[in-house]
């Protein structure tokens, strides 16, 4: 069935836009509240608001997992019989492998969002700033922990709408128009496929500049690859690691980098070994499931060694001198 996923920064008008899209298309709106109600009907009564709390506390991993699984199952189930507009909750990742789905991301400058939030919730500036930052942080963390995907990687979306300079209903209309084009693709004569190789190289360079990284170490690593003129892509692929009996995704893993010339995926971790076990487990699972895919973990020690952080003489530390 039809699927439109909408991911939004806090204060962009995501709730209203999603409602408009649902009303105008007749699609069923799926958001935090409808999921909570739906799951409660199935006897799993975890308020969606608590999800963020669960994530904060490692003790609750088992419960979080259960809840996330139930939620994914519920959404996939709904999608069998209904056309859906899914607001947040990682919809873009859940339906990543489903080509008819349109994945939308709403953005707006921080100040614009701030103005909106102050007005909407009747808050003072300080509280509103805190609220926006906290909400965005939670979204980032949710994507990272549940899907291991960078929420801010705009390349994971088909359409990015800046809601600063338009009414929310106009934004909804744009999304609907995009969905219609997307659902009935025409032959694209001037798409990226027809661009000359040289142009592509420049484009790649420009994209590199604009890349948003999850972690400073990733940015540093990208700079190092640039230094040695090694082509790279940031989180280009998500590997499914676990799914239930109906094929619904329960766990996925997106390695940080792909080096196309080396055909190698690289995952960086600057976590201490004690905290890196989750990542190690994912990599082991990935190696089991995708034996033909080359993936390498660079741990904290290895990464520091790469950057020669412990060296006084920066030129030469016994590495390929």
């Amino acid at each position, binding site marked *: 069935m039809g699927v439109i996923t909408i991911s939004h920064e806090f204060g962009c008008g995501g709730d209203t836009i999603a409602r408009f899209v649902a009303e105008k298309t007749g699609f069923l709106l799926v958001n935090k509240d409808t999921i909570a109600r739906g799951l409660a009907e199935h006897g799993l009564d975890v308020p969606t608001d608590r999800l963020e709390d669960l994530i904060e506390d490692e003790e609750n991993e088992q419960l979080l997992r259960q809840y996330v699984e139930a939620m994914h199952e519920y959404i996939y189930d709904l999608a069998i019989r209904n056309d859906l507009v899914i607001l947040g909750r990682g919809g873009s990742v859940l339906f990543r492998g489903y080509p008819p789905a349109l994945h939308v991301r709403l953005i707006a400058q921080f100040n614009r969002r701030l103005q909106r939030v102050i007005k909407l919730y009747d808050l003072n500036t300080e509280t509103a700033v805190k609220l926006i930052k906290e909400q965005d942080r939670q979204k980032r963390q949710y994507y990272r922990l549940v899907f291991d995907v960078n929420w801010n990687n705009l390349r994971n979306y088909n359409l990015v709408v800046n809601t600063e300079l338009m009414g929310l209903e106009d934004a909804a209309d744009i999304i609907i128009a995009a969905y219609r084009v997307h659902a009935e693709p025409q032959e694209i004569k001037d798409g990226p496929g027809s661009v000359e190789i040289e142009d592509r190289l420049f484009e790649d360079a420009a994209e590199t500049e604009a890349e948003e990284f999850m972690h400073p170490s990733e940015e540093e690593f990208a700079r190092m690859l640039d230094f040695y003129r090694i082509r790279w892509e940031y989180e280009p692929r998500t590997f499914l690691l676990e799914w239930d009996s109906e094929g619904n995704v329960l766990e996925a893993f997106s390695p940080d980098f792909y080096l196309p010339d080396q055909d190698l995926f690289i995952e960086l971790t600057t976590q201490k070994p004690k905290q890196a076990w989750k990542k190690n487990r994912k990599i082991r699972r990935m190696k089991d499931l995708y034996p033909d895919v080359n993936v390498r973990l660079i741990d904290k020690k*290895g990464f520091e060694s790469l950057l020669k952080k412990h060296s006084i003489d920066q030129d030469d530390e*016994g590495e390929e001198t």
Partner: protein
Amino acid sequence: MSEKKPYSTDELKILFGKEEIEERITGLGKAISRDYAGEELIMVGVLRGSIYFLVDLSRRMHIPFAIDFISVSHYTEQINQTGVVRITKDLDLSITGRHVLIVEDIVDTGLSLGYLLRNLKTRNPASLKVCTLVNVEARRIVEVPVDYKGFDIPNIFVVGYGLDYNEKYRNLQFIAEFDRYRQ
């Protein structure tokens, strides 16, 4: 080792002793001499770590050859943030149409060696091969061909025989594991 050590070597765990290294280098010298017999060979030492190895290896060769040196910059966090790798000392000899053997002290990530190979390839040598004293496959990011190697080691940090830590330990006649996190 002489009585007067320039610094303490107590914290080092010897992996390959002087004799073992000599024996290995003798073997490499033989193999290279055999493979390049009758060819015009240039041995290119990558500064600075490879000089000890290059000197000893060259003395175990029994065919004529030329020696040259090259040096490339390395990435560090503090400097060169926007720069690209560059050759800080280029070859003096032309390698076009000649057989080139790059001599390294260690090959680990393959990042700078990969760059060097790409760079030298554009000068159209008759062939381009790599000889390294120490090979750390576990740290490889870029696949590079290693045609001759002295020793394979796991993912550990080593010093001695040209390999340094902050310019220390190069002149040791053995190769030792060095735990720099204990410093």
